[in-house]
């Protein structure tokens, strides 16, 4: 079920609205801001099992016995100009990735992807709290025209603090934690911020470029010349984070990069469940479908990861960059 709101109706109450309305006359909803619901987009609540059988009161198929998949297993959300897909993958018990994004009409858009650290407690709660908290800060900045880099730092720190509050006293070792990658996009520029190994890519008309550097021990060793890129990929420390969000993060600021948007393109945010299978920008470029809306791009990239084995949760958010043609 795509949740693309019609331009003719209020997404909350369904009342007819005109594109010029700032608020819905029916329910008072802010029509300029559209975003993923706090707590995560409701998963598509299928009334039936994939095999066609009815589901019983406990959510089991009366025919094939399969349990109704948890709401987070597959998440899809679509807004004009940006969309995201998050999938549990084929191996993990839970989807501990989260995504959140939104847009402010005529101003810009913001998106966040966080990947819960599997060895920590309640990792899915950590990533969900982080994306929701960060998106609030970013959308406020988009609306008010605040400084993108300052907003990105504020968003990461607010998310870090929110995740930190989930920790149980005396269980610091397994305190809920997650990675972070964000994008704040206006008509002129885009700012990407990150903590950990979730990535952002810029896709132009002739190629793709990675905008982030992984905060992992392996990446650090590559930077110091101890490991080659190739060795790092197979090294057991490849995914051991050197920075993260959470009670024990001691985070001072995210890394961030800002660039001018002059030509149309795509900004792709993803968790390592995608880039494990497409490690180089060229791989991403080769796998990317052309001439389709962002949601199709996100779906196709997730599909590539699933077909390659889907060993981890896979999350992809795709933001369309219009290059001065209006977000």
């Amino acid at each position: 079920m795509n949740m693309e709101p019609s331009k003719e109706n209020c997404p909350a109450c369904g009342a007819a609205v005109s594109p010029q309305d700032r608020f819905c006359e029916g329910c008072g909803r802010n029509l300029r801001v559209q975003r993923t619901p706090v707590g995560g987009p409701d998963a598509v609540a299928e009334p039936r099992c994939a095999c066609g059988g009815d589901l019983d009161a406990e959510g089991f198929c009366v025919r094939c016995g399969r349990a109704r998949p948890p709401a987070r297993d597959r998440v899809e959300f679509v807004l004009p100009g940006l969309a995201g897909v998050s999938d549990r993958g084929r191996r993990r018990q839970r989807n501990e990735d989260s995504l959140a994004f939104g847009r402010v009409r005529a101003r810009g858009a913001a998106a966040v992807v966080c990947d819960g650290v599997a060895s920590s407690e309640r990792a899915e709660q950590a990533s969900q709290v982080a994306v929701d908290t960060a998106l609030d800060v970013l959308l406020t900045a988009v609306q008010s025209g605040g400084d993108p880099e300052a907003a990105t730092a504020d968003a990461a720190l607010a998310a870090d603090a929110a995740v930190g509050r989930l920790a149980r006293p005396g269980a610091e070792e397994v305190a809920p934690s997650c990675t972070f990658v964000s994008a704040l996009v206006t008509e002129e520029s885009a700012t990407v911020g990150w903590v950990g190994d979730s990535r952002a890519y810029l896709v132009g008309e002739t190629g793709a470029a990675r905008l982030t550097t992984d905060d992992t021990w392996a990446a650090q060793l590559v930077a110091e010349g101890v490991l080659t890129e190739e060795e790092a990929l197979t090294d057991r420390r490849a995914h051991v984070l050197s920075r993260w969000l959470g009670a024990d993060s001691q985070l001072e600021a995210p890394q961030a990069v800002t660039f001018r948007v002059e030509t149309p393109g795509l900004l792709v945010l993803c968790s390592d469940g995608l880039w494990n299978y497409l490690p180089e920008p060229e791989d991403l470029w080769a796998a990317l479908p052309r001439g389709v809306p962002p949601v199709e791009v996100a779906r196709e990239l997730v599909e590539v990861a699933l077909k390659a084995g889907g060993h981890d949760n896979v999350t992809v958010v795709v933001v369309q960059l219009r290059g001065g043609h209006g977000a």
Partner: protein
Amino acid sequence: MALEFAVEVFQNEYLPEGAAEVHAVLTVSAAGEPEQVAADPAAQVLIVDASGSMRYPPAKLAAAKRATRVALDALRDGVRFAVIAGTESARVVYPANGLATASTSSREAAKRAVARLTADGGTAMGQWLLLADRLLADHDRGPRHVILLTDGQNQHETPEELTGVLDRVAGRFTGDCRGVGTDWQVAELRRISEALLGTVDIIPDPADLAEDFRAMTATAMEKAVADVSLRLWTPEGAEVLYVKQVAPGLLDLSDRRADVAERTGEYPTGAWAGAESRDYHVAVRVRPAEVGQRMLAARASLVGPDGDVLGQGRVLAAWTDDTALSTRLSPEVAHYTGQAELAEAIRDGLEARKSGDVETATAKLGRAVRLAHESGNADTAKLLAKVVEVEDAPSGTVRLRARVADADEMTLDTRSTVTKRVGKGR
């Protein structure tokens, strides 16, 4: 009907990728105060072997009569009953017609009739059961129970004839079999008791019959609900590998399935008392799903005679690539798998011993000693020690005893299916 059934499921639901077999132990407990349970009146038929062999030694027939009188005394007022004398045919000793209703006078009259019983003729147990079935036919509500006592082999009908009768009467009443002395066949009586969802036991000394009959009748009197079935729903493409009662004794119900709906079958469990608990081992083969998926592998329901669901439990399957999860053993499943192996090892070992295959007998009975030791089944270990000399129980090192009393060997055989209840967490 105020009897309620609780179904507890013990299993490790986590399976490795591609695994299809799901095992679970269901503990079914019936609860309800006997006074509050509006039980339908019970019916009890006592079948006493009156073949010629019962005359020798003379104490045997006397003991059987005494035991029957004790059983009659244990009948509650209002219970419907009859006494049958079995030979190559069967005749009703009491009452003259149909079933009597237990009262002081009817019990005394029945006891007088039993006292006049004489022994002469052959043995055709199928005929005995058919007469019991005819008597019980009118009593279609409430527990119907038969006690069959014999001292010999079923000489006057073929095994096929007996099979035919068992197929006919299975599910119509429950029954317990007792063999007195050592001239009867364990396999034969076990076949009957399994068909009747009851127990079989040996009473080597006729003097012990009376107490056993009293206890059996008392147990039968406690039954509050008859004809309870274990209903099993399994998903499309699944196959029920087996359904076994594993406690208090082993009883394979797999072949007793009656399909009642698509993907749903019922297995008879007989009659239940107000405070009774049994364990069942259920094994289902399902179509494996992908790692990360969960499935309802079976839904087990206890169903009353009117089709009303009295209790339910779920058997789950979840596929994972976390070997720490999938390799974990359910202690309950492991325990009863061991108890079933123990019974099989005893039976195979005794069979090999009979046919003179010392090597196989020693290996099988040694294995049985080890399994009994490991599972803490002290009763079975004691019985085994009368048939083999145990050198080292943990390793199952044994030697066959040169001289073994028939009664000891038969007792081990008969009670090989009595399991030790799993201890932990109960």
